[in-house]
């Protein structure tokens, strides 16, 4: 059920990317898609009654291993957040430049290229 909600969020992002005219909204759709995938990864690593995968000097290793959540998806999501930030900044840079050229954020008015 919870995964299905993640998937719906992903589809909303996809809808934003493919259907919207405004460049800013396309960027936001992209961001939402990435959120959905990140959230899915993290949620898939959660375990019932889980605790963060961080040890301190009082931790009992036995209970830690039997209770900590999956650390690997968290590492992946950290990487993917950064990649998302990189794509976002490049997109904003191109959007600014396109705005300077065309004076608008409307993508349907930038149809010099066909195909």
């Amino acid at each position: 059920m919870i995964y299905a909600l993640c998937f719906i969020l992903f589809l909303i992002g996809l809808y934003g990317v493919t259907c919207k005219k405004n460049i800013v909204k396309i960027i936001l759709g992209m961001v939402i898609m990435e959120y959905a995938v990140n959230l899915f990864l993290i949620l898939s690593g959660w375990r019932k009654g889980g605790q963060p995968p961080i040890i301190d000097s009082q931790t009992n290793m036995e209970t830690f291993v039997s209770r900590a959540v999956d650390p690997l998806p968290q590492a992946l999501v950290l990487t993917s957040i950064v990649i998302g930030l990189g794509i976002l900044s490049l997109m904003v840079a191109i959007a600014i430049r396109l705005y300077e050229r065309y004076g608008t954020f409307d993508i349907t008015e930038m149809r010099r290229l066909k195909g």
Partner: protein
Amino acid sequence: MIEILVGSFLVFMIIGALIALETSDLLSSVISVGAVGAAMSICFLLVGAPDIAITQMVVEILSLVILIRATIRRDLTTIDGDREFFGLMATLAMIFVFLVLGFYVFPELPRFGTPSMLQSSQSPAQHYLRNGLKETGAANIVTAVILDYRGYDTLGEATVLFTSILGALAILRVYSRKKKSHDGKK
């Protein structure tokens, strides 16, 4: 308990995402994406991922600042609505296919709260939890994974950031061509 909390945050996120995409005011749509991100950050905190929660929060703030300063301030005229009819239909058909795929798949996924790492005691994640401190010396297992077991990924990640910033610098430079050599392509 946490299922219900996470589920309600997810519903909130879906509503926020819809508002962000459908509202005609760009500033409020950016801010509602910010709200979606903040809700996601709280979700991360709930499911035991404080590292990611911190990162998500700060990245969120920075990207909102960039988005607002760089795009919204230039143009607040509202361009709204969808692209042409055909594209919309194609997309809706695609989304429908994905929905069908989704409902075909999601009952099959492991139940929420039973991560796949529990399937076998040999899985890498179990190994990290059990031996991470011993093998790498880092008490934060996520850091151990990021910088030791999968350090190569992190090198890639740093490179992605470097690349995109170099790309943005390249895209935004003033003089891009030495002379107007090529004429307009129609």
